[in-house]
């Protein structure tokens, strides 16, 4: 029973971290209509920034800054926002699928840098000994898991409330206008370029924060945590939850993560040992099937962002 509760807290923590990333995507896609397929890259930038700044000295890479966790998270947001703004600036003239291809490329580059710039990122070995919140009670697994869940839930709630506030603000209204008709928005005095970059940066900051939170939750990061599968999962979460809705983003993250974990547990239990490695792909299949069902029966997701009428 105690084990189950501990696992529940761990599961929910992971789901909420995905929820954070999905909230960032909802700002970019749901509100502004920016087709960002480079999510894993921005999450990685946040994770590495915070990890490098807060971890103790390591032999073969820069480090030993030993900064407080909160400072690491803040830095993760700033650095990722800058990287995202730069991406937004470089892709100002690109729309829809062209923007998607380019952002995908950015994510691949980030992952390759993480893998190869050993002096900065630790290369394939990643960054270890990332300080975990409440490390003092780490031997009491259940308490430790619940305290961490509390921190992650508080961060998620704060981000959710902030995003709700801005999406109802005049700023959010401009983003929605750009999503619907960029030329009309320009005729009404809005600088499409400036708002696009802002939406990239703000969404990127949230993704970077999520990356940092996750890095400290696990205590260890490596380049293969930031493969395109992550981007695919987050997109599925937003589609299932309902693009344009912050509540939908969070719910979609929990639902899709449940299916992901459930499919993994199911294949582990049912499929014989020597087939296990191949069966791992069934998780992606399960998410794909889920997406198809949602698109067939409820294409707007659980929460519709559309107004009445």
């Amino acid at each position, binding site marked *: 029973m105690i084990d189950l509760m501990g696992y529940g807290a761990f599961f929910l923590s992971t789901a909420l971290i995905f929820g954070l990333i999905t909230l960032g995507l909802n700002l970019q896609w749901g509100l502004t209509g920016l087709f960002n397929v480079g999510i894993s890259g921005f999450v990685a930038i946040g994770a590495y920034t915070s990890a490098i700044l807060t971890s103790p000295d390591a032999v073969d890479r820069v480090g030993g800054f030993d900064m407080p966790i909160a400072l690491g998270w803040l830095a993760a947001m700033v650095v990722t926002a800058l990287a995202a703004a730069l991406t937004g600036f470089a892709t100002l003239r690109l729309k829809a699928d062209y923007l998607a291809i380019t952002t995908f490329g950015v994510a691949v580059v980030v992952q390759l840098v993480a893998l190869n710039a050993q002096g900065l990122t630790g290369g394939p070995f990643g960054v270890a000994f990332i300080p975990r919140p409440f490390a003092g009670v780490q031997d009491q697994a259940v308490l430790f898991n619940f305290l961490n869940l509390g921190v992650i839930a508080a961060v998620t709630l704060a981000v959710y409330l*902030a995003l709700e*506030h*801005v999406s109802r*603000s*005049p*700023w959010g*209204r*401009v983003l*929605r*206008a750009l999503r*619907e*008709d960029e*030329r*009309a*928005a*320009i*005729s*009404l*005095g*809005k*600088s*499409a370029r400036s708002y696009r970059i*802002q939406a990239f940066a*703000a969404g990127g900051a949230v993704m970077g924060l999520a990356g940092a939170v996750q890095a400290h939750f696990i205590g260890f990061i490596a380049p293969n945590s930031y493969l395109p599968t992550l981007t695919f999962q987050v997109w599925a979460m937003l589609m299932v939850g309902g693009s344009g809705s912050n509540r939908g983003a969070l719910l979609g993250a929990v639902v899709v993560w449940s299916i992901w974990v459930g499919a993994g547990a199911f294949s582990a239990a049912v499929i014989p040992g020597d087939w296990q490695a191949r069966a791992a792909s069934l998780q992606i299949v399960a998410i794909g099937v889920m997406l198809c069902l949602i698109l067939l029966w409820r294409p707007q997701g659980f929460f519709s962002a*559309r*107004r*009445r*009428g």
Partner: protein
Amino acid sequence: MAVLEARNVSKHFGGVTAVDQMSFAVAPGEILGLIGPNGAGKTTMFDLLAGSVAPSSGEIHLMGQNVTKSAAHKRLSGGMGRTFQIPRPFPELSLVDNMLLARQGQSGERLWINFASPRRVAVEERAAREKALGLLDLVALRRLADDPARVLSGGQRKLLELARVMMADPKVVLLDEPAAGVNPTLLEVLIDRIREINATGVTFVLIEHNIDMVTRLCHRILVMASGGMLCQGAPQDVARDPRVIEAYLGGVPA
């Protein structure tokens, strides 16, 4: 002083000259009609004035300022608004939100101010909303204020665009075919509103094919053909000009 002026403006698209050495000035308080056969370059001329297309040569002056090189989104705060030939409301946004988007200088459109001083944003929003509802009332759309703009008919969209651009308190408004696709009843509403707004000192430049509307509304008419200026003058004179008749009927001997 002219509120809006084109000086020797030309626009080439590859080998095609869409607008050829156009020069004209719009006087304060005037309603100027821009007519001409299809392909004469009227809409390109509008895009040049509005800044969404850059001229190949020549200059555009707005309220005495040379705005030739300034970005399109700065025109409205500079005093000039426009509507589109095919109306461009934001379909999923409510009518009120459509209106509020046109308000200039809203501090809440800067992200950080929403956190730094939410009260200031709320106060501004209330005032802007009040104004928006008043303008929607004027074009008989107030009862739909909270509905998404996609429910509007073509004619109502034209009215919404007119009301929307008025949110910015412009000095000059460019109207691209305001009468196209508008039913006769709504058209009367539209003409009345343009007259009323004009009476408050707002200048209009409009492209229109509905000659009846043009002659009733405009103080002066400018006729374009093949990118250039054919002639200009009072509505009655222009309508009788043999060059205009020939341009419209395509070279039939008068």
